[in-house]
């Protein structure tokens, strides 16, 4: 009906404009047409970093430069992983010290240069200002995370008969349970320990302080006239966090008896505690399933962390895990919860757990997961997210699957995914595994391309990694690159690793090469010698001494080689007969009978079995004078 009407209207609009008939219809028509024609574009809203983000996206990573954080300070130019750790720690601690100084002396920093004002640059108030007994004072203590002071204030308030609001009580219980009734280490206070590994340290802290019977949290909780689910939630989470698993489950039963319904955090905490309260795999799974069913009965929507903690608990249920983890993944998808990297990490670990017969089927799982994740950019949603890449690369390395390794790495390069590589330790693990995989499987040219890209800007290879690189060079017979690798070994601080250096020397000495290569090898060998000479503690091994001598001999550095022989004597090492015979050949080439005689004498001094033969050769090949004879 509408369409003919429109047509009529359109007709009138076209022809009947002069007649001015049916003006209403005309309006209706033009209105409906304009409604279709104009599409109002959506307003584009920029966040305040938009311009900077656009600029930042134009900057590429420079593989030859130090990490950006060290570029300001020429003293902080890390060449090894140890230096990297040390410098970043010192940088952090310097910042923390400055912050502490500013905050503890606010009177000295009253000048405000910034216009408009920048509040962050002004000293923060870390000291308590409110002294009287009031709820505000309690709130202040809670916000400054002063646990014992807050508890004290709460007690005083109770004694004076002042009622504390439910919200403040929740906050107080949260605070006490989070820090397990202990004052947290305040940020900005001077510390003797390092701060760059806060997670490890904090975890240690939390493990150290265990939930005590009748601590302040429980005491306050028991004193409460009425308890709601939030109070239970705080306590149960605190108990699980600090290792009182059985207590947490008791409290949960208490909550159910009081006809309250738990929230999702309680369930998450309880599920993660399951492996500690049940010993048998079946019982563990039964308890998890029961908790999940209770969630559904109480109309609690599970979230990502729920399923991640289920999977984490399943990791300790060995054989059941393989059955149930795919089902859990499907359940997540059915509920519209996007799995995070941690989810996949758990599944991978479950399927590769203790499976010595990691056949193609298991790699297919990794392949599946990677296919699903391809091209997606992630944000960190779960603390275990940062383990994914290292785990996936480990699987690739274990199964020697180069193709999947590249896939994993391409996933890292998507968007901001590199942030999920985790801290420097995790990152080193990941890149180390990737590099080892490359050395094992890839052609040497590609390996060297990657080597120049990630070493040392992203990875400081460990001695094992360097050994793998040497082996890769050996397999593809590119031993002429050894001197440059030696330079890298030196700059990475691995020149004191005896086995690595010996590997290098033996590779250099194994075969004869062209004159140029021999020349560079000899220079390299001399360098090795000087490095060893600087460290008197390092013991020379016979093989390395003889390797260096041979290298020098091959490069016609007779004098240097002769020095090496003296070194044998000094270090009480015995050169091999083969070395001495080749020495003799070199002497003959340079026509120095004197030296040959000395060689024989030396050999006699070492009481080598080859001495007579050497002497014979000397007599035969050199024209000796009487004295020498």
């Amino acid at each position, binding site marked *: 009906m509408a369409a003919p009407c429109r047509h009529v209207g359109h007709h009138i609009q076209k022809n009947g404009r002069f007649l001015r008939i049916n003006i209403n219809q005309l309006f209706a028509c033009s209105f409906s047409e304009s409604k279709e024609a104009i599409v109002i574009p959506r307003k584009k809203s920029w966040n305040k970093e938009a311009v900077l983000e656009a600029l930042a996206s134009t900057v590429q990573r420079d593989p030859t430069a130090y990490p950006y954080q060290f570029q300001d300070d020429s003293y902080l130019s890390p060449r090894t992983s140890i230096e990297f750790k040390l410098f970043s720690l010192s940088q952090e601690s310097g910042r923390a010290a400055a912050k502490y100084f500013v905050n503890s002396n606010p009177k000295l920093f009253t000048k405000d240069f910034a216009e408009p004002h920048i509040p962050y640059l002004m000293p923060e108030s870390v000291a308590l200002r409110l002294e009287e007994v009031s709820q505000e004072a309690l709130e202040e203590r809670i916000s400054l995370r002063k646990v014992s002071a807050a508890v004290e204030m709460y007690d005083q308030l109770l004694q004076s008969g002042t009622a504390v609001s439910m919200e403040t009580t929740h906050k107080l219980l949260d605070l006490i349970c989070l820090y397990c009734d202990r004052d947290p280490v305040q940020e900005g206070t001077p510390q003797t320990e390092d701060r760059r590994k806060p997670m490890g340290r904090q975890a240690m802290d939390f493990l150290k302080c265990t939930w005590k019977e009748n601590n302040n949290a429980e005491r306050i909780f028991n004193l409460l006239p009425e308890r709601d689910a939030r109070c239970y939630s705080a306590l149960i989470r605190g108990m699980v966090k600090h290792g009182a698993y059985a207590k947490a489950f008791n409290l949960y039963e208490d909550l159910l008896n009081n006809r309250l319904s738990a929230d999702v955090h309680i369930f998450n905490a309880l599920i993660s505690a399951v492996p500690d309260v049940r010993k048998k795999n079946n019982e563990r799974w039964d308890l998890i399933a029961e908790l999940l069913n209770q969630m559904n009965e109480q109309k609690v929507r599970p979230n990502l962390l729920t399923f991640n903690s289920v999977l984490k608990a399943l990791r300790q249920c060995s054989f059941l895990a393989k059955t149930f983890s795919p089902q859990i993944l499907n359940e997540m998808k059915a509920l519209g919860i996007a799995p995070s990297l941690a989810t996949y990490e758990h599944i991978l670990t479950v399927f590769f757990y203790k499976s010595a017969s990691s056949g193609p089927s298991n790699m297919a799982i990794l*392949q599946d997961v990677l296919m699903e994740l391809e091209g997606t950019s992630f944000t960190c949603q779960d603390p275990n997210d940062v383990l994914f890449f290292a785990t996936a690369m480990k699987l690739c390395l274990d199964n020697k699957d180069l193709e999947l390794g590249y896939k994993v790495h391409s996933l890292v390069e998507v968007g901001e995914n590199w942030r999920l590589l985790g801290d420097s330790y995790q990152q080193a693990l990941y890149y180390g595994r990737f590099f080892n995989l490359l050395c094992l499987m890839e052609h040497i040219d590609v390996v060297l391309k990657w080597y120049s890209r990630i070493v040392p800007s992203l990875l400081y290879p460990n001695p094992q990694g360097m050994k793998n690189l040497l082996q890769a060079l050996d397999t593809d017979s590119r031993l002429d690159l050894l001197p440059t690798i030696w330079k890298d070994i030196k700059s990475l601080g691995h020149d004191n690793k005896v086995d690595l250096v010996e590997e290098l020397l033996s590779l250099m000495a194994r075969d004869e090469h062209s004159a140029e290569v021999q020349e560079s090898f000899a220079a390299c060998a001399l360098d090795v010698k000087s490095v060893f000479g600087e460290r008197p503690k390092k013991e020379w091994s016979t093989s390395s001494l003889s390797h260096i001598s041979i290298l020098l001999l091959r490069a016609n550095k007779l004098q240097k080689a002769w020095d090496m022989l003296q070194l044998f004597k000094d270090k009480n090492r015995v050169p091999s007969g083969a070395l001495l015979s080749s020495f003799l050949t070199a002497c003959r080439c340079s026509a120095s009978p004197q030296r040959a005689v000395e060689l024989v004498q030396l050999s006699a001094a070492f009481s080598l079995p080859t001495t007579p033969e050497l002497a014979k050769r000397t007599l035969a090949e050199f024209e000796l004078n009487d004295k020498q004879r």
Partner: protein
Amino acid sequence: MYRFLSRTVCVTRNHSLCVYEGHVFSAKYDNVSRVLTGVGVNPLSTCSVRCCEKKDNAIPSNQDEATNVDTQAKITQLQEETEQVKATDRDSMQQHSNVKVEQFLSKSSQVNTDGAKSGKESLLDLLGAMKVQVTSKKRLKNLKPKQSLESASAAMESTSSMFQKATVQASAQSEALDPDLVAAASAAASTLPNRSEAESELLKQLRQRKLLTEAQKKGDVNNLGVLLADMKVGKRSGRQNAWPTNQIRFDDDGQGYVRDRGITSELANVQKRRNIFPAKRLNIFSQTTDEQGDESALAKPTLWDIEFANELSLLTNQKPRNGFEEMIQWTKEGKLWQYPINNEIGLEDEASVPFHEHVFLEKHLEDGFPRQGPVRHFMELVVTGLAKNPYLTVEQKKEHISWFRDYFHQKEEVLNEADVYLN
């Protein structure tokens, strides 16, 4: 698919009929348009039928049915056309009482009887005759404008003779058309001699159409029932064979075969791979999507949430990779002035102030200033200047005005002496 086919057939039939009916209305005013649209209906319906045909190409047994449908559609179309002819007869009857028209009528009725005699076997003949009729009508059209004016009064008088012709026509038609139609036609004929024929004829025609559509619909349904039954047989036989090969065999382009196999093998691969993750799920949670998630998002973050977020940020690598990223980090931490992204940077205080506060400042002159005279004049100039100044806030503008207010109050005596401060 079969259901879809039948439905499309039905729909197109109905549609064409509706359209047709609509044009019967307009037929009175414009013969030509009616004829044109009447012609236009045919391609429409045949087109749709052809579409259906195309869709069913894959199944060989279907083609018979499709052709069946086609012929059937043709039959119905022919029926429609005969109806159309009848309608035109009536129109012309109404409008012209000339001998010419009567001649034409007799001719057309003859055509109809011819059609009736030959029956369905000579459908093509009928079609040809109708085309002749259409052309004759076109010729007629030229005469109409003159004749219609002349015959306006004559029309009334000649109704009786016209009726006679009509009954003849009806009887002639009765041989050709369905018994239902005959009944309808006779009913229409019986009511015709009334004086109110101008309105009633419309109604008759409508009614007739309605009956027609119903009858045709019934016929269609019956035919379709047969059709469907046939198709079911075809389908059974089709399913017994492996369908992909069948499809490929009847694919028009040769490429289909290779491509199809590629896709199926790919599919098989995917299925094989998917077997690792069976589609089974726990089935604990129901799939309700309620708004609880939003509620929790709205709630204030607790200490646990803050601590969790802090933990996550410590775990991930947040180190800047270049100077810009460092500046982003500083901006987020609040250490840096934010980079301007629009023209309103630094105007956050003024964002809530509407523009008229800036522009219309005369209201601030109402108290404390004289109503006229040089001071007032001066102040008006000041206000105009302020209104055009984009660099001051409203508060600053007000301050500026109030400074003058104080100033002139202080100088009131001096001004009064000079007789310039009025009021």
